[in-house]
């Protein structure tokens, strides 16, 4: 009965008629963060594969940086889920007793495959010659760290390196569909919830994938600019322009797909559409129309467009890229928010709404903030241990 009396306090959060199990919104900020982080991983990896597989030589300066960025974010990608579910000690059960017909339960294997079979191996093959070199030139703990990573093989003969190159290339080729799988999978999870009209669309995996590429490319672009600035090195404008152009192109495709989805919903006007359009005009107005579409998409696309079409000077282009990459990252975060939270705001009765009140001094916000910042520290450590900078290595 005390439980029922708790409803008195919760009812002001509710508008209209909703079912009791919809009052509390279960997938909160942490679940928003999860597809966001995974998207950054997939996007950064795809940028790396541009250099490796598609031979876009202009983006070569960011090849290793992209791989390390992908690794730094991939290492924390599961943390929002573990924090959300509680009981992190049970995490291994999805590996030990795999449930093959559950997409959610197979995530562990998708993740493990991507981390261990793709990313770690690719980085290892790419850095192996450097490990051998650093194990000879460095001292102390670092020397041993590199020594262990060489697996005790110091052979960097032309034949061995050629083999590394071939295998690394093969792994990248396998890695591209794997990156698509990793993020397409996240969209698939949402897209396959058939009871939820806001999520259930076969376009969802594709939209997630495109937005993942957008956010990952924007993240590497920003990290490249910031690290070059911190190291007082010159930014390779050819590289930055190429990344900017890819960002622009993929962003346009991503935005078109999202708008296609929206227009399709408006035109089809299924029975759920009344509540969805009401939600877009009220609860999601600021995060979707303003945050995602205007500030997070149209402004950065326009800024990128301006820098190309008006052939802005390098200094101006850098500023435009800098601003548009930050806005892009915010916009994609808003997109994840609108998908995850939006899908739970309206009732399956299509007659009411609940409210998501993020307690800014609650545990969820602290944990989410910590998880969002952690990859930057991991990346800093990786950059220290595995310097990706071209001018110093080659």
């Amino acid at each position, binding site marked *: 009965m005390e439980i029922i009396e708790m409803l008195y306090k919760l009812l002001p959060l509710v508008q209209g008629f909703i079912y009791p199990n919809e009052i509390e919104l279960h997938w909160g900020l942490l679940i928003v963060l999860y597809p966001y982080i995974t998207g950054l991983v997939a996007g950064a990896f795809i940028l790396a594969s541009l250099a490796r597989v598609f031979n876009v030589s202009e983006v070569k300066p960011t090849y290793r940086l992209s791989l390390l960025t992908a690794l730094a974010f991939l290492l924390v990608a599961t943390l929002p889920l573990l924090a959300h579910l509680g009981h992190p000690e049970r995490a291994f059960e999805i590996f030990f*007793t795999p449930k093959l017909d559950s997409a959610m339960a197979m995530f562990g294997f998708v993740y493990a495959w991507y981390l261990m079979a793709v990313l770690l191996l690719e980085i290892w093959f790419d850095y192996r010659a450097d490990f051998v070199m650093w194990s000879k030139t460095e001292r102390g703990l670092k020397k041993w760290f590199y020594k262990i990573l060489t*697996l005790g093989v110091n*052979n960097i003969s032309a034949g061995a390196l050629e083999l590394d190159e071939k295998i690394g290339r093969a792994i990248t080729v396998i890695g591209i569909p794997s990156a698509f799988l990793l993020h397409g999978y996240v969209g698939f999870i949402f897209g396959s919830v058939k009871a939820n009209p806001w999520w259930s669309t076969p376009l969802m995996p594709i939209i997630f994938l495109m937005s993942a590429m957008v956010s990952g490319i924007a993240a590497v672009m920003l990290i490249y600019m910031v690290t070059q600035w911190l190291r007082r090195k010159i930014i390779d404008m050819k590289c930055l322009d190429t990344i900017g152009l890819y960002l622009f192109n993929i962003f346009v495709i991503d935005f078109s797909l999202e708008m296609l989805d929206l227009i399709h919903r408006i035109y089809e006007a299924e029975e759920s559409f009344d509540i969805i359009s009401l939600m877009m005009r009220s609860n999601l107005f600021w995060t979707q129309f303003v945050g995602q579409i205007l500030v997070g998409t149209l402004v950065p696309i326009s800024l990128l467009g301006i820098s190309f079409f008006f052939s802005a000077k390098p200094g101006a282009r850098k500023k435009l890229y800098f601003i548009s990459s930050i806005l892009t990252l915010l916009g994609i975060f808003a997109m994840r928010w609108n998908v995850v939270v939006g899908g739970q705001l309206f009732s399956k009765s299509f007659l009411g709404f609940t409210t998501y009140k993020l307690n800014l001094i609650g545990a969820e916000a602290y944990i989410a903030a910590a998880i969002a910042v952690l990859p930057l520290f991991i990346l800093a450590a990786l950059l220290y241990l595995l310097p990706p900078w071209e001018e110093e290595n080659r």
Partner: protein
Amino acid sequence: MSKPISDYEHIKRLLIIIVMVVAGFIAARTMFVPKDFGEYGHYRGGSLEENMSRPLNYAGSGACADCHENKHTLWSKSKHKTVNCQTCHGALLKHTEDPTSIKPRKPAGRDFCLLCHGKNVSKPTHFPQIDPGSHNPDLNCADCHNPHEPKPPAGDG
């Protein structure tokens, strides 16, 4: 072009590590998967026993009729017959075991009734609902309505 064998040495060692990881996983699996896993389905068979041994809170739906026959008869013919006794009175197993010292709760005031009967444009119009601001705001619902046999009080149409 054939390569000297030593060029493959690091690959060999890497493969050994991969085999060790996979073997370690298989070994861990045999250790950590409970013996009764999959006995009935994709879960531990023993978890059924564990759940059955958890303390009960709710009495069976017929339990109330044993002592409260009048109320039960009234209720079972009323419009509230789909609302279980324990929906309003709370979990009652302990009360059935010790009826004198453990008393069920009686929802007082208006808030509880309004959970269902507060006016809401989203509800079907045939569902009885009132605007708490204008509908006798100073009275308790039970002053006029018997929750076991809810109907408009006599003379109220």
